[in-house]
């Protein structure tokens, strides 16, 4: 494992007003990345989106069970990868059983995880001791 270049650890109340803050952190990281030769504006949007969607999911899971819970988000940049972890205390779900959106008969929800999986390189959701962790990796 490479040494992290940057490590950010944020804990927010389970309130959607903090989505802007979390998303903007992703945008700033994309714009400040050294040695990134790809489309920086696109990466900035994608990180904003992925952080927003993952945090929204964590807030939803938490507010169903313990409304005064918090959501923890960590972002680590390494030389060749960016690793996002979003921790929730909800009941959890099986990532593998989440279906793709039906593009022919689109529905109002169910697109968030599709965005995360489509725009990032690796997505896992695992249960740890007292929480669930959505780990998202984007190779740079």
């Amino acid at each position, binding site marked *: 494992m490479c040494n992290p270049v940057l490590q950010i650890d944020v804990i927010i109340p389970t309130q959607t007003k903090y989505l802007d803050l979390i998303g903007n952190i992703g945008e700033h990281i994309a714009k400040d990345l050294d040695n990134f030769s790809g489309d920086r504006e696109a990466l900035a949007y994608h990180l904003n989106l992925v952080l927003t969607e993952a945090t929204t999911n964590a807030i939803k899971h938490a507010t169903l069970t313990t409304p005064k819970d918090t959501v923890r988000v960590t972002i680590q940049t390494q030389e060749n990868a960016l690793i996002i972890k979003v921790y929730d205390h909800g009941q959890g779900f099986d990532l593998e059983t989440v279906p793709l959106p039906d*593009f022919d008969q689109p529905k109002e929800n169910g697109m968030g995880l599709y965005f995360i999986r489509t725009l990032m390189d690796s997505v896992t959701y695992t249960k740890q001791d007292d929480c669930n962790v959505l780990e998202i990796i984007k190779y740079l």
Partner: protein
Amino acid sequence: MKLNLERKNGFNIIFVQEERIDAHNSGELKEYILHLVEHGDVNIVVQLENVRFIDSSGLGALLSGYKNAAAKSGKLALACCKQQVLSMFELTRLNRVFEIYTDLNEAFENET
């Protein structure tokens, strides 16, 4: 959520005066459109010029509005999308559902 409404050429134009549509404010947009449709204002153009970010809940709010308008023989179209916002409609194939116009003039030429 800051929204302005203008009526022109038989259309209700909603100007979204926010840079960001996400799960924090998309519910308001959804309710606003539903309220219009329920009052018979079923032909709607949503002007997204100021919006630089939309997430899945924002797309869902617009899709809800589209379906509600269509159910009452109306139509909801979009105008003035920034490139990054447009790419979200392309990624979800929702660009095949919505009429997306470059500007309001193009919307009126085609919708009226």
